[in-house]
């Protein structure tokens, strides 16, 4: 079997299996820990509303913090939105999702996706530079941060390489692109990339708990 067929076939299938096992494992491992009943008199019982509220609201930094976090937030916005556009806007990607889930939606012109992809790479590189150069980030960073960064940027770079026919025969680069996605899928549940799911749980938890106390978030 050639590399591309192998990548699109068994390797991708296994990567997805690992992704699902790992994700459910980690979520269950967290959520099935003890949850102590809270007997205190609630100030508000709209805890679900508080959870939903914070999930949405924390997407935008608070005014008081906007200035200090502008750089990091801008980078973060660019590559998160960029990744979303590339993953969910590029027609071949939509067709992949369709082959997996049956769902599809209209795609974007390739040119736009390429430009967004390039911006995403630029933002991710800026994020790495910041991680290395900012004393706080350098101190708190660990191997997971750097590995997850590499695993995230790899599909974007290989995807752009494939689109540009750069670095080797197209099927080989495409295969490497698919393999990099497999690596991303297989790694996602085990490192910080899991925040793709946990962000909702963490924000929701704080949102609910604080709403109960009437404390503002």
């Amino acid at each position, binding site marked *: 079997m050639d590399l591309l067929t192998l990548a699109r076939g068994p390797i991708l299938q296994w990567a997805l299996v690992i992704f699902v096992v790992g994700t459910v*494992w*980690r979520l*269950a*491992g*967290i*959520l*099935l*820990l*003890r*949850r*102590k*009943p*809270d*007997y*205190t*008199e609630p*100030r508000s019982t709209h805890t679900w509303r508080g959870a939903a509220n*914070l999930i949405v609201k*924390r997407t935008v*930094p*608070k005014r*008081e*913090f906007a200035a*200090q*976090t502008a750089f*990091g937030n801008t980078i*973060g916005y660019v590559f998160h939105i960029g990744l979303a556009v590339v993953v969910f806007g590029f027609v071949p990607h939509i067709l992949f999702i369709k082959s997996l889930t049956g769902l599809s939606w209209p795609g974007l012109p390739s040119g736009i996706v390429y430009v967004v992809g390039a911006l995403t790479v630029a933002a991710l590189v800026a994020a790495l530079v910041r*991680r290395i150069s*900012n*004393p*706080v*980030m*350098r*101190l*708190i*960073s*660990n191997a997971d*941060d750097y590995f997850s960064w590499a695993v995230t940027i790899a599909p974007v770079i290989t995807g752009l390489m494939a689109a540009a026919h750069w670095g080797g025969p197209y099927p080989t680069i495409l295969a490497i692109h698919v393999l990099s996605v497999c690596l991303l899928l297989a790694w996602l549940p*085990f490192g*910080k990339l*899991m*925040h793709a799911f*946990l*962000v909702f*749980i*963490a*924000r*929701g*938890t*704080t*949102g609910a*708990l*604080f709403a109960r*106390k*009437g*404390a*503002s*978030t």
Partner: protein
Amino acid sequence: MSATVVNDPVGGVARGVPRPDLRQDMQGEMPAQERVDIAMRHFVRDFGAVAATYMESCVHCGMCAEACHFYVQTGDPKYTPIWKIEPFKQAYKREAGPFALFMRALGLKRKVTIEELQEWQELIYDSCTMCGRCTLICPMGIDIAALVSLARHGMHKAGLVPHELWAAAERGEREGSPLGATPKVLKERIEWIADEDDVDIHLDKEHADVLVTMSSIEIQKYPQAMAAVAKVLNHLGMSWTIRSDGYEATNFGLLSGNADWQRDMSMKMIKAAIACKAKLLLLPECGHAYTAMRWQGANVYGQPLPFKVRHISEFLGEHITDGSLRLKKGLNKTVTFHDPCQVARRGGVFEAPRVVLAALGAEVHEMKDNRSMNWCCGGGGGVISIHRADAIRYKAFEIKMRQVEDTGAEMLVTSCSNCRLSFDDSQAHFHWDKTAHSLLEAVADNLDDTPPARSVAPAAIVNPYREAPAP
């Protein structure tokens, strides 16, 4: 029970913060590795789904540093809030994380050393007031303050608590008050202040609607608070009492990280309130007392409390709003209000003190960062008690000082005696001209004893605590 204080000169000097008093404290005797193990295991002992969610979600974006007064004022990355629990991440991953089995079987964890834990003592105790400002900046919504609180559980079990804090907590457990306000002292102080201020202070009544609790800081340093609360409650005509079997609201068990001591302190008040059939447990002007009793008390008790728990500022606000507490507009000046972190940001009481100030006729000039965004005084979470933290606490206080100055207000008011203690100490240090005044005392000084005007509808002044039969 004796404790050993180990003076250890190891440790760095924070940038811009001279630290004349470098030392790491240890309590008890045990081998280093055992200390580490105990710290790690007890950190996760009380871990539930919530703490685990927080522990798992950090993306190391570093933004929390920008919310922390200790980092902002020193620029030292070690004061990044999430970094303060770094060694405990290892513990969590090894003991309670979803992949803990692998972590243990394959040894996939960084070995935490006793030296590291000693180093982290400063980060977990001296440089965290658990003010929770970082919670509001975290893009993941992680409540880092809650994790620091759990880390303190581990540190306490391992005997790695700054000595003053440990001693205060231990004294609280042993004598009933961390600052020496024993029942005997309490009685003496009440007798004296009642006489001094010519006010009836009800002590140890068998039955009362309201159980008034005190902060030992008030008993020892701000005794006027006792007279003030008595005047207000007498003005409202309530049935109330202070009970010598449950008066101490400060909870150094909570601050030092000893869950057992925290429970013992809380249970005294809960039992006293039940004993006198109180409908309301009134908490003093104290921040962490609010967290301990209002938001953890029922859980310590293991079921809903048969009475309500209110902070004094909430109580005052409620009674001003319902018209039962009538005040003279005697505070005829510009005032700024310092929100105590545990009552406001983490407790949910924002508007009540402002209602009170308005009723007193004050013109409130808010600080640039107010309500949930307020900056901590720097002394919360037990930090005020740790001498070696003085330098960094003063450094953090500079933010507060600037913000107060910027309001141009003539008077500074707060509703937490621990904040007041911190303000007083820093005021002396900086030779500052602003003093933090008590909201309660301002109310007590401006009670309007003239009979209410006829136009006030009787329904509006119904006092929910008067419904019970008089004892």
